[in-house]
């Protein structure tokens, strides 16, 4: 933020960066073989809903768009609202590449409609023998970071740092650890949740 922005007390809204999303596809082999993480088959886009009629229209259009891509790839789409006032579009597909591609399509559609600033993060679910490990893509930073919940709002930091050490050569991993924001109970794990 420049001096002029500070003086006038305004700041240009931060837009989403989608460029690095596909790094997940290219690193898929390392994630699965070197780290032993298995895709949960689900990904979730988390965004802030705004109080406006047009936003509802956008979501309806997205549903239609995804219904078409659904036929091609077999990706299933559900919607989810969380207790923090954020909305999720949850994609289910056993193929990780399809998940990444569809996530990119949805993100891009939202961006084209001018809702770039509403995008918070995309969460890709993985499981590890030690527990769930999610890879979170922060749209505003354009980086991934690992999130390994260990029950009772605690995180398995050792596992997260291991994921970082293995992946940082191949993927853009968020360098500032204080920006590894927790995403509790993301709707990207199957079963009873």
């Amino acid at each position, binding site marked *: *933020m420049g001096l002029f922005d*500070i*003086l*006038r*007390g*305004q*700041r*240009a*809204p*931060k*837009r989403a960066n989608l460029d690095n999303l596909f790094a997940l596809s290219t690193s898929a082999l390392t994630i699965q073989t070197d780290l032993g993480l298995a895709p949960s088959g689900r990904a979730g886009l988390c965004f*802030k809903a*705004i*109080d*406006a*009629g*047009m*936003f509802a229209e956008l979501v309806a259009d997205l549903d239609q768009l995804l219904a078409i891509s659904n036929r091609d790839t077999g990706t299933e789409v559900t919607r989810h609202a969380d207790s*923090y*006032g*954020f909305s999720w579009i949850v994609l289910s597909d056993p193929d990780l590449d399809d998940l990444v591609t569809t996530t990119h399509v949805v993100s891009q559609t939202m961006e084209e*409609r*001018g*809702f*770039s*600033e*509403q995008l*918070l*993060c995309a969460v890709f679910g993985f499981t590890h023998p030690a527990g769930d490990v999610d890879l979170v893509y*922060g749209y*505003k*930073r354009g980086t991934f970071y690992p999130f390994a919940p260990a029950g009772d*709002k605690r995180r398995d930091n050792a596992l997260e740092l291991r994921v970082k050490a293995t992946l940082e050569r191949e993927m853009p991993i968020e360098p500032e650890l*204080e*920006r590894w*924001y*927790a995403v*509790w109970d993301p709707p990207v794990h199957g079963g009873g949740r």
Partner: protein
Amino acid sequence: MARRLYGRDTGLTARMLFTMFGLGLIYVVFIGILIAAGVGAIVVLVLAGGFALVQLLFGDRIALASMRAKVTTPDQAHELHAMVERLCQLNDIPKPRVAIAPTDVPNAFAAGHSRKTATVCVTTGIMQTLPPAELEGVIAHELAHVVNRDVVVMTVAGFLATVAGLLIRFGMYSSMGGRGNRNQAGVFLVVIIASVVVYVLSFLLLRALSRYREYAADRGAAMMTGAPAQLASALSRISGAMERIPTRDLRAAEGMNAFFIIPAMSKGVSLSSLIATHPPAQKRIDKLMEMQAQLDANPSAQL
């Protein structure tokens, strides 16, 4: 580049810059008078500068201590931290410290001059009074203060008023204690009058600047949350609740007014709009609802 329609208010920017320009102009004139009068200006300026620096460096600790506020960890206030974190992630802002002040006065303020010391403080009262969506609007307003560096801006702007205030005393002590001739006494008289005029003007301009910064923070909050109506609703709820809070508590909180989201005013005290640190709640609510109307009409305007 896509921008929200309410992302700009040229009039507000112009007024704010004009105010700051006015402050700077007065500063220059003031220095000129000092030099013409031949006062030991450097000594005074160093003192005032030191004072402003102390205020800047320790202001956050003083503010938090005076409210008996405690900086919390995510474990201690999970929901609050989650709310702050999501707003920070959404807007790519470094997360500030999060503090809670144990008082029933429903209020919130931002403190700290740097990225490391930036603190957003909410009272237990505001957490009880507001539903989560409205609390989010209030926190976004305080985050906007942090992003806009309002603590630094107001401290630097206040530096001038401090200089003038110090000089009044300096001039008085010197003229009373000095053995000087009539010429020197005349010089001091000029200095004192100049200081008083400068002080009054800078005071009014400071207050105006503070009010403009509030509008700017409201606007910033609206852009962060995408829901101006949330903050508007919070403001009306707080301003309504403020009148029903016991006066003793309010008086204790009055020193903190400059950084509060709505100033705590004792009943019966009416400040003229010229010297208030905050614009009237109703005006702020009107502006926010205007933004909401623009947003509803055209949620993804290209400017």
